[in-house]
């Protein structure tokens, strides 16, 4: 058994945004003697192991049965971890034929994109709604708060609500958009993958602007 402190937590760049980069990173880590054993929070969990040359692939499959994993296994793809019962990471020897047919790789993105559509649109509506409430009622209400500590509390409360709704937005709408725009390589994907930094920054700036309004 490994001690907790010998484990390594490698942050994921977000499988919705940087799947290929993440899979390559896991390959490199395997050659450096780190074996993938799980996924926790937003990080891959790895443990020390003999270095090995392996490649990784990721698939989205809802409620797969044993046949799915059996077919993968006989083709050389062994399941390593499953996240949220949906995202499955497989490993194989270099040169193993791909898990997907060349023409139909996009199918997996269509599957996950369809499932995310409703949450994505809901989070979009929620974001607009919360900001509208903040501008229309939140700010006037906050501005007349007294004494100082109550004003601070009100401000923190409003900021908390904004952060919460933006967090939901980042984890639903942005992945959906990323899957929707698959195949749209190059600058588009770079812009998308920087959104989880840009959106929090914009949120903070917008909130400061709201306070001064």
């Amino acid at each position, binding site marked *: 058994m490994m001690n907790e402190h010998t484990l390594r937590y490698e942050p994921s760049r977000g499988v919705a945004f940087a799947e290929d980069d993440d899979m390559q990173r896991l390959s490199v880590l395997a050659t450096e003697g780190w074996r993938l054993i799980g996924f926790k929070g937003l990080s891959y969990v790895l443990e020390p192991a003999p270095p090995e040359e392996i490649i990784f692939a990721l698939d989205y*499959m809802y409620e797969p049965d*044993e046949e*799915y994993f059996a*077919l993968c296994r*006989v*083709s050389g793809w062994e399941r390593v971890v499953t996240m949220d019962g949906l995202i499955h990471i497989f490993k194989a020897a270099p040169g193993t034929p791909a898990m997907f*047919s060349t*023409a*139909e790789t996009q199918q997996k993105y269509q*599957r996950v994109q369809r499932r995310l559509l409703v949450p994505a649109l809901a989070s979009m509506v929620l974001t607009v709604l919360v900001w509208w409430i903040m501008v229309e009622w939140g700010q006037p209400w906050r501005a007349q708060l007294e004494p100082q500590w109550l004003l601070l509390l009100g401000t923190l409360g409003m900021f908390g609500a904004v952060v919460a709704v933006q967090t939901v937005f980042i984890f639903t709408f942005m992945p959906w958009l990323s899957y929707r725009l698959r195949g749209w390589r190059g600058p588009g994907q770079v812009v998308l993958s920087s959104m989880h930094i840009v959106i929090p920054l914009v949120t903070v700036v917008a909130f400061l602007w709201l306070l001064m309004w």
Partner: protein
Amino acid sequence: MPRRDAITNGELNDSQFYILVALMVPRHGYAVMQLLMQLGSQAVHIGPATLYTTLRQLVEAGLLMRCESDGTSKVYVITAEGRTRLSNEIERKRAMVAFAERAIEGRSDDE
């Protein structure tokens, strides 16, 4: 159902076509994959994830059905509807090839 749409109103894609042909006789998923691998580079490469998804789609669309199961690997076979769709697809492909061949022969005649 979105998954059905692709099969019910469109033509069969390459993976669907090869899988239906392979299942003219009952086979389990792995046997389908092995058979297609033997065709070599002339056929499409059908990975396990694509095979699994396509089998599910074809069963849902009524072009394949599951027979008795041996352990974890299910046995599939083509249905009457599947045969009809396959014949239509062969006709369509034949027309495509004939058109292309006429064009190519026509051009070589000019030379």
